[in-house]
């Protein structure tokens, strides 16, 4: 089978087909121009459902794909909040319904999902996404149509900068980076830290930048800065460089699937320094993949299910009764995002995009599972973060760090 029909033409044809396929995917990044709203759409009412039917709220989450636990946990949290609000009589006498689209963790799917939610399903507001890259894509669409969007857990700074319709109930990466920098300086007494981040994820890159900035400001030294890409499975070259730099700790602000592989390969290379990360580590799958390799690792998160505040106790109890699982941080964030949105809907003068956005923006000291939420002028939530440690495959509470 050595010399076969193989010509440049055929390869070219194959490349052409590939090109067409990829171009086809790319095109979905943005909504079709023809379907956009008229100029000044930010004040439009495209999303408001008329009449007395149920209030339709859109959700876009990664129900399948690489970060599936993120979407599933968030969705569980949202559904719990919906159940509770409907049991208590709904909003303005109307029931709430959720329309969910799966993003598969793909950026291009996020834009498509939000476009469908708004143009076809005519939702009043949008909840989602977890991953910042996807929220950036979906948020641009929501802003364009003037439909308020609340992201439960996208921590990248740029997400709410899209425009006045985009809110979040979580802290932002500059704060999360500060938390882990402070923790490694004060609690771990680390002088030299190496970082390994996913340069293809807005979340990972933003958190890395924030950590590096805070850590150097606190007098620490970055021993080595290494990057990888989504889809990489071999991290030995980066880890070998990190090993040679002899850091006191390693900061890996990635998502749990990659972190698991990185931890396994790091221990194989003989790296014993403690590993640290952000809320992307928050999945019960991480200890299952990495086992003993991730034991003792620290990460910043939105809440700890061990906290004794009544909001946390009630939420953990209700969640366990419904799903027979301990809620992770993303479930709590999904629950909080939905509840905060419903609270704003109750207060809003009408359910038009503009009124609703104003009501969300006026949220102050709202008691939620992940701490008291006040939406600031940048449409971000100001609240404390917790640091957790992975112990025996479970998350143990270590410290709470307040905003600066």
């Amino acid at each position, binding site marked *: *089978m*050595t*010399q*076969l*029909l*193989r*010509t*440049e*033409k*055929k*390869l070219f*044809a*194959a490349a052409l*087909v590939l090109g067409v*396929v990829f171009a086809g995917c790319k095109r979905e990044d943005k909504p079709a121009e023809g379907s956009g709203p008229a100029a000044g759409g930010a004040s439009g009412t495209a999303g408001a459902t008329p009449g007395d039917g149920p209030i339709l709220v859109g959700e876009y989450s990664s*129900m*399948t*794909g*690489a970060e*599936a*636990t993120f979407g*599933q946990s968030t969705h569980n949290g949202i559904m719990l909040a919906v159940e509770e609000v409907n049991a208590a009589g709904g909003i303005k006498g109307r029931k709430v319904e959720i329309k969910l689209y799966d993003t*598969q963790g793909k950026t291009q799917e996020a834009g498509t999902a939000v476009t469908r939610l708004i143009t076809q399903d005519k939702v009043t507001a949008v909840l989602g996404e977890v991953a910042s890259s996807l929220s950036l894509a979906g948020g641009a669409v929501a802003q364009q149509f003037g439909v308020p969007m609340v992201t439960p857990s996208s921590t990248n700074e740029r997400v709410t900068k899209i425009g006045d319709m985009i809110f979040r109930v979580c802290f932002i990466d500059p704060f999360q980076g500060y938390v882990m920098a402070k923790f490694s300086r004060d609690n771990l007494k680390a002088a030299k830290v190496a970082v390994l981040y996913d*340069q293809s994820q807005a979340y990972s890159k933003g958190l890395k930048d924030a950590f590096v900035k805070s850590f150097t400001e606190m007098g620490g030294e970055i021993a080595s800065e*290494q*990057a*990888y*890409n*989504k*889809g*990489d*499975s*071999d991290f*030995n*070259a*980066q880890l*070998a*460089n990190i090993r040679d730099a002899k850091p006191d700790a390693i900061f890996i602000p990635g998502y749990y*699937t990659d972190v*698991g*592989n990185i931890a*396994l*390969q790091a221990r*194989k290379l003989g790296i014993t320094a403690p590993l640290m990360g952000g809320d992307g580590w928050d999945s019960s*799958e991480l200890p*299952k*993949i*990495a*086992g003993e390799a991730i034991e003792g690792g620290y990460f910043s998160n939105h809440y700890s299910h061990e906290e004794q505040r009544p909001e946390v106790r009630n939420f953990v109890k209700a969640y366990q009764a419904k799903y027979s699982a301990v809620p992770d941080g993303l479930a709590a964030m999904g629950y909080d995002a939905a509840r905060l949105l419903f609270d704003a809907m109750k207060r809003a003068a009408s359910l038009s995009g503009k009124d609703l956005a104003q009501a969300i923006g006026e949220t102050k000291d709202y008691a939620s599972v992940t701490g008291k939420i006040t939406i600031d002028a940048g449409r971000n939530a100001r609240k404390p973060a917790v640091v957790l440690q992975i112990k025996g495959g479970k998350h143990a509470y270590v410290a709470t760090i307040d905003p600066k």
Partner: protein
Amino acid sequence: MTKLLQTLLDSIAVGSLYALIALGYTMVYGILQFINFAHSDVFMLGAWFSFVLARAMGLGGAGSGSIVQSLVILLGAMLLCGVLGFLIERLAYRPLRKAPKLNVLITAIGVSLLLENTGQLPQLLGKQPARMPSVIPDLVLVEAAGVQIRLVDVLVIVIALGLMLFLQWLVFGSRLGGAMRAVSQNQAVAALMGIPVDRIISFTFVTGSMLAAAAGFLYAAKYPGLNQPAHSTWVLLGLKCFVAAVVGGIGSIHGAMAGGLLIGFVEMFGAAYLTPHLRDVYVFTLLIAVLLFRPSGLLGLARVEKV
């Protein structure tokens, strides 16, 4: 020096994995002149079948499987993927034998999506990543001057080379291989000579899929954190192996072997000595260079196509 030797070892190990997968692409192209995009999913399933079989045997705790258990897992995964490869060809590609090549190519993309998304069903493999139980003991065989020679790397190289030698004999030394080569040169004439063309094509798919399954097993042993079926890791690995097949000269078996190793070398040396996160850039730059200066691949023969 330490780094050089370590990188050399890693390159050969990763390169032989690539070569095993690249062979599947090249064999199918050689015989049907289309690119089987579902091949990377067969590789993914090879890794996941190994996981399922290892779990079924009760592995997963401390310690690792015996040699017999590991062999059963390897052969089991190859068998399952062989059957899968047969079914894919029989159900998806054979009905399109007379259709334009473009239809088959698009069908291949469809099969790929079907496998990825069916694999995510909770009743099947699920959406979560998993930890591959230890099938090859984590032993450092030789440690000299900082270079670690691990059992898993040695086995990856030995098994991959063994399979490639077997394939070499199969294609160039057996009657069946003669029939395969005949079908690849001219299907109509081969059929006139009494060669059962459909059966030979099925056999080619089964062989390619079994090699991909072996690669999946070895990959899972080397990188035990298995990503979920639709993760971009699998697509990227498949793409690199496709690049390996093109660089070596698509349709050429020796080309795929050489291409796989070359891609492994370029990637590992690039990662170790230049910037690690640009490893894919080196691979695709090589592809562009080869396509520019030697479009038919390093070991491929340029042929004029009669129009």
